[in-house]
């Protein structure tokens, strides 16, 4: 009985759109619209409409919010799939109800990361014509090409992972899915038979294994920080701590993102049973742990940067410490951490709206930190003779609007996908079955 109720619950988002759904859709489209309006200006006038400029005598920074946001989105993309892979590999079944949302978040966030590369470059039209022919010879040299390669591989892995696991669900839930998308389901289910389930289970396990190795070692603990860590010209960037530091920030952002999305679905579709409090409580502890790592790695950098550092590094660190917005970033993450610790000690302090608010603030903090890292790194070059160094940088409206657009894209993505496929795995209610019955009894 409960499984049947579970299936009804699971496919609830797929039913006819509510007013709230339409409202969210319009908001997402509005966000994207605002950004497109501004982006059109950038396309027609060039990057001059940003507040970027040349470092050195040019008095500015050539990389800014676009690159900061790029790192931030890749970071968010991480956790999603790491969490999902951990559910599968380590049997963390508690989090199974949010595993697919996490996978979807990975796809959406990687798309946004790609979008940021596109809007960052001066000649987006050449991204295919220049990058593809250059790949074979440049991939052994350019860290940026490493990024393109690893992110593409990561995207393919995640998409494959998602596709394989979806087939199982569509097959079993087909009668509850709308006929409008019949051709799509047919395409997704091409050649499916129940015999494949076991094989797919193994395949997915290996994919999860690959992802969990690749993400920390190669992606956010690898190629993304290496974009900066390998450049000795900029004191604030170079060094081995960037890998761990980036990874900690990525995981912090990612868990925050999952908390917000899971809470949104739970709220809108009354999924209290499907995604119980316990999931959020557990996620909040992970968030606390990653936030602690993040702050600890900041401390490492600050200490080594001010005690007896080489002049330029010392200067970069001192300026960072005297930048108010740095303390805003650290403060937001620090406050989140305090709340999570407090609620771990006293459970009554914990509530879902509060942890959602904390997650939101943490995401703001990590975005600020990432952008600041990019900008301040450039402002304190070893070659500091220029009067224009340090230059100043405040993102222009064109740049800021991209955040609105990217968030709009993620929201739109979830709105659309949730109408087509179940955003919670069938496995979640199958495994969840016993627990659900228990809760029902207690109800």
């Amino acid at each position, binding site marked *: 009985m409960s499984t049947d109720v579970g299936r009804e619950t699971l496919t609830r988002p797929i039913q006819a759109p509510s007013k709230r759904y339409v409202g969210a859709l319009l908001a997402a489209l509005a966000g994207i619209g605002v950004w497109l309006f501004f982006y059109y*200006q950038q396309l027609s006038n060039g990057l*001059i409409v940003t507040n970027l400029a040349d470092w050195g005598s040019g008095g500015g920074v050539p990389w800014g919010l676009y690159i900061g946001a790029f790192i931030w989105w890749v970071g968010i993309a991480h956790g999603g799939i790491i969490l999902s892979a951990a559910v599968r590999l380590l049997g963390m079944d508690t989090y199974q109800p949010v595993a697919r949302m996490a996978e979807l978040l990975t796809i959406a966030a990687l798309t946004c990361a790609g979008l940021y590369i596109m809007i960052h470059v001066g000649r987006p039209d050449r991204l295919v014509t220049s990058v593809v022919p250059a790949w074979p010879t440049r991939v052994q040299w350019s860290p940026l090409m490493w990024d393109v390669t690893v992110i593409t591989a990561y995207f393919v892995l995640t998409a494959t992972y998602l596709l394989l696991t979806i087939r199982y669900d569509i097959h079993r839930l087909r009668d509850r899915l709308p006929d409008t998308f019949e051709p799509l389901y047919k395409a997704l289910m091409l050649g499916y038979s129940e015999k494949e389930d076991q094989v797919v289970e193994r395949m997915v396990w290996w994919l999860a294994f690959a992802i969990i190795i690749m993400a920390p070692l190669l992606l956010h603990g690898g190629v993304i920080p290496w974009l900066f860590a390998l450049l000795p010209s900029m004191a604030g960037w170079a060094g081995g701590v960037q890998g761990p530091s980036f990874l900690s920030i990525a995981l912090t952002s990612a868990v925050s993102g999952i908390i917000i999305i899971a809470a949104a679905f739970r709220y809108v579709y009354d999924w209290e049973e499907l995604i119980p409090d316990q999931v959020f409580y557990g996620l909040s502890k992970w968030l606390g742990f990653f936030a602690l790592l993040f702050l600890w790695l900041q401390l490492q950098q600050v200490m080594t940067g001010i005690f007896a550092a080489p002049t330029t590094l010392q200067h970069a660190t001192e300026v960072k410490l005297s930048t108010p917005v740095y303390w805003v970033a650290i403060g937001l993450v620090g406050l989140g951490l305090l709340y999570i610790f407090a609620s771990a000690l006293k459970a009554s302090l914990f509530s879902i709206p509060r942890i959602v608010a904390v997650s939101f603030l943490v995401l703001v903090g990590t975005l600020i930190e990432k952008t600041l890292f990019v900008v301040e790194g450039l402002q304190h070059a070893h070659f500091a003779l220029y009067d224009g160094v340090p230059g100043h940088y405040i993102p222009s409206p064109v740049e800021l609007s991209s955040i609105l657009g990217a968030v709009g894209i993620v929201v739109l993505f979830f709105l659309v996908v949730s109408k087509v496929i179940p955003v919670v795995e069938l496995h979640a209610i199958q495994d969840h079955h016993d627990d659900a019955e228990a809760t029902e009894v207690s109800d």
Partner: protein
Amino acid sequence: MPDEDKTDQTTSFSEDETRRMERVLDDTEYDTELGVEMAKDAQRVAAGELGEAEFYRQYHEDILEEFGEDDRELNGLLDDVGNVDAGDGEGVGDKLQALADEKDLSRREVMKKGGAAVAALSIFASAGENRAASAEGEGGDEYDGTRWGMTINLNNCDGCLACMVACDQEHKLSGGANWMYVFTYEDDHQDDENFLVRPCQHCTDSPCTKVCPVGARHTREQDGLVLTDYEICIGCRYCEVSCPYGVNYFQWGEPDHPQSEIPESQSQDERGRWVGARPPEGVMGKCTFCVDRQDGKMGDDKIGTTACEEACAMDAIHFGDLNDPESAPNTHLEQYKDEQENDMTFQNRKEHTVSTFQLMEERGTDPNVRYVGNEPSQDAEQVEGPVSYEDVGLVDDRKEEVLDNGAMANQEGGEEA
């Protein structure tokens, strides 16, 4: 930090040649180390220091192991090498060229087919014999023995900014894109005002070419110029971010001078790549060491000169082939040293008192610009010079004076559209 002797090198196995060699060999599937060793010994053969038979014996086994017995071209080549009399005047390079002609292959193809060893032989043999193979109308991209560079004598500079103006005009640069830049600075341990003249350093080991994801920023093999292919560049600005010297200027908006003002001969280099004059919108630009002049596009008498050098009335900028002992940068340095004699009555003194340096040598970029004078310290501060940038119609702070206004103007334009 002044380093007096390092910059005088013109020997054949200099580090940059070895590095250049390694770069070529890294692109092949064969053993780089073996290739480099062979190349060096091949050059010794060419110089008559090592017998060719000895050379053959030394590498025969390694070659067999690396390339297999069936590589007839290679074995044929080595047989030839083995059979050549030391006195007949024919070097390894001739043999190679003959092989290339016979098979109707370009030198590049021979290099690919024969792999590391042949590539090594080809390049070093020709370098050893001082033959500029690719310069003879082929328009190829192989090292021809030239290494363009500068000696900038800061002691002579008076900060008139004429070099900046000349560069700006010749390359039709947009406001604030100061490919050539002159600092006036004050420093703790230097008197009065000092100058630092900063073109692109055209590093032998340039970070910008390493990080470029699409190979748009590249080193021209034939003469070591570091250039940007405006037709490939995607405008990611990673080169700018990786450059220790801040010599890159992105084209943020529409260029001040339309392409129609720039003759094609100035834009296209002799390989037919668009690397000269100012960049188009959305693409990176920087000092090219006047590549159009070096390719003879502005007349033969301009080869080996730059716009900044010509404009300098103080004899501070000396451009030329660093590999040629008779070139301007080398002769100026020698003459200048001779003029600054040291008091040799004290023991262990050098013959001259000239301080030279490469900018931020410790970065390991091995610039092809070397300076005479004192290097600014970390405490140096830029001050207003005797001639202000404004006075000569140049913009210093590009962001404040050009981009911020330009952005506003452009935004209005965008809204109308």
